[in-house]
């Protein structure tokens, strides 16, 4: 498969690019919801529009009312979300949440997917338990109790956790904290008794919550997939989230790069446009190169994931690490090349810098993924 969009994908990209630049733009979305101190960190009207365009269910099966598309398509949407810094539950809900639920029973999918696809509800995914991404270690426990389970423990950095109708929780049903096996995924309804949220605003104005589960009673129907056998489904969810975040990062990097090169072509000092200075030209050209490479490896990883290739896991980690590094360079160079105005809230470049930080951390930063690359390569 060639590493560029096919006709359908190119059409999707066209539509989504226009839509996001307009409806998802920084002023009416990110700044608007940030400045009003929105408790969800995103706008529900836009989420409804996502649904009208068919985006909310793009990864869901056709039988479930979705479009049965893949990670390349989801990445197209995420890249535009990134470029416009659009606050949206798309990644957690439509990419990770839907991937998780797709491994569940008819009943479970019937219970949660229609609301998601209609744009009425959002999902959150609770995996990590510490400030760093460490999904290998899951201590949150679900003990068998009657026909169901009793869930206790805590989860950290659950994006949109307090706004979600259901929280997809990776819990331990057997074994010890660092065992690969013994994991079960649950769809926990938001109103289950014993859930408490510490709802926090992050640097990029997104909302995330640290969740505590205190003997939360769950019926057997809330299990997604197999009891104790949830690791492979969890890995799918992680793969989707990681490459999704990487795609969004390439959009953030591109957005930052575009406003920076535009600035180089308008700002004058020493009687010249600053873009005439070779020192800046070379840094801009280097950055261009890094962003192009990141974009290429992200598409490669998406295609491998969609094709079920055994190399997907490696390339997803390469993609997340590379996208994080390239995007980070883009926002740092962006602020620097803007000079003083780069430090002001009025200019958008600082918003890109904030979003980059959050997204880099989400689902593992470049250090985590470079470590995985080493391990997957056998050293």
């Amino acid at each position: 498969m060639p590493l560029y969009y096919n006709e359908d994908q190119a059409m999707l990209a066209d539509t989504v690019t226009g839509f996001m630049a307009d409806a998802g733009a920084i002023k009416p979305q990110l700044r608007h919801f940030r400045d009003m101190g929105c408790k969800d960190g995103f706008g529900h009207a836009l989420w409804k529009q996502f649904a009208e365009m068919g985006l909310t269910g793009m990864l869901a099966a056709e039988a479930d009312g979705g479009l049965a598309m893949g990670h390349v398509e989801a990445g197209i949407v995420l890249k535009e979300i990134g470029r416009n810094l659009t606050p949206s539950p798309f990644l957690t809900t439509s990419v990770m949440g839907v991937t998780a639920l797709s491994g569940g029973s008819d009943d479970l999918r019937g219970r949660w997917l229609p609301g998601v696809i209609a744009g009425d509800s959002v999902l959150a995914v609770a995996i990590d338990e510490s400030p760093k991404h460490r999904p290998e270690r899951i201590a949150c426990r679900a003990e068998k109790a009657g026909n169901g389970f009793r869930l206790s423990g805590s989860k950290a950095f659950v994006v949109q956790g307090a706004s979600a109708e259901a929280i997809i929780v990776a819990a331990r049903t057997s074994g010890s904290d660092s065992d690969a096996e013994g994991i079960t995924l649950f769809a926990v309804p938001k109103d289950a008794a014993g859930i408490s949220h510490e709802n926090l605003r992050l640097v990029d104005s997104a909302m995330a919550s640290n969740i505590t589960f205190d003997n939360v009673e769950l019926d057997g129907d809330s299990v997604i997939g197999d009891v104790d056998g949830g690791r492979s489904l969890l890995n799918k969810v992680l793969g989707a989230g990681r490459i999704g975040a990487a795609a969004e990062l390439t959009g953030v990097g591109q957005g930052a790069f575009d406003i920076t090169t535009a600035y180089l072509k308008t700002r004058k000092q020493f009687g010249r446009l600053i873009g005439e200075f070779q020192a800046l030209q070379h840094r801009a050209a280097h950055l261009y190169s890094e962003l192009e490479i990141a974009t290429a490896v992200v598409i490669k990883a998406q295609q491998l994931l969609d094709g079920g290739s055994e190399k997907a896991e490696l390339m997803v980690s390469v993609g997340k690490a590379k996208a994080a590094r390239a995007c980070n360079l883009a926002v740092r160079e962006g602020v620097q090349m803007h000079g003083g105005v780069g430090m002001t809230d009025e200019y958008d470049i600082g918003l890109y810098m904030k979003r980059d930080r959050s997204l880099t951390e989400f689902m593992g930063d470049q250090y985590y993924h470079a470590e995985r690359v080493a391990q997957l390569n056998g050293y």
Partner: protein
Amino acid sequence: MSDLDGFRQEIREWLEANCPAEMREPARDEADVCWGGRNFTFKNPAQKAWLEACVAKGYTVPDWPEAYGGAGMSPAQAKIWREECARIGARPPLSSFGIWMLGPALLKFGTEEQKVHYLGEIARGEIRWCQGYSEPGSGSDLVSLQTFGEDKGDHWVVNGQKIWTSYADKADWIFCLVRTDKANTYQGISFLLFDMTTPGVTTKPIKLISGNSPFCETFFDDVKVPKHQIVGALNRGWDVAKYLLGHEREMISGAGGGDRLNAIGAVVARNGLDDPILRAELAMFDVDALAFSAMGEKFLDEAKVGKAHPAQPNMLKYAGTELNKRRHELLMSAGGATALEWDSERTNGGTPARSWLRTKANSIEGGTSEVMLNVVAKRILDLPGA
């Protein structure tokens, strides 16, 4: 899809039957590379058999038209060919400036006669070419070149000097930039082809820091070049030269495949890796190398259907050569004192050190990294005054 699957199967079987085992080992050094040409001596019978098998099928230049010695493969087929060769580690049957540089330029600018004649020779590995671009006073500022061709009716008489001419002492022919109009800078250069045995051509090898002497000073003293040996129009050689440079840069970037795209951590770790900081650097390198391999694949896919930015090879060359230099710095660090050995048998005559030194030229030859960044800034980013 099934057509392509069938094609893949066909290629796989053909490779199985025709690619000798010795040709599936990574090339250890220059001597393992088959350059072809009048004076080439094969290192072993396998190298010869492999070349001949590929020539018979047009596989030395799989995507060139059959009429010019290729196999006429479509972009998708050529990709399968590359993938299948990579899968078994098959060495390129033939490596040459003719394939990488002159060939693409002739396909675009050559006359039908030139194509049939020269491309066929290139495809069959009969003629080895060298590149006469750089001069002592004209490196990055190539367009200032002074080598002059005086019009003598049915031929030019060329006088001047080239430098850094890779393999000039081994090449059969040269493609050469010659000024044919002193009043015009860009539109006063012609692209000429001539035989290195033409009277008046002399070469003098230059020794590199790696200890090898792959390139030369080349002198032209009243060299007669017939008029039909021009590619493109008179005084429009710069167009041909630039187009060729695009292909050269793509080639030097390593984006087309091969060892340069591989991760190295696992190989290094085989000999023990007890330094956590080096391991971390290797991991970061592997991230960059594997990401760059996707970039190379994407570029080739896009180039074949006209989707790639025409100046993109400059970016690839910059990124790919800087990466390769980093690769060899890490390999030297991992190798420790052993990698310092200059002529020991166990290092195959100092291969690690010599290769490391050789890579320093990657970001100079074919246009320096700084020049690549200039071109990207100007042609892709459209920055002012660039």
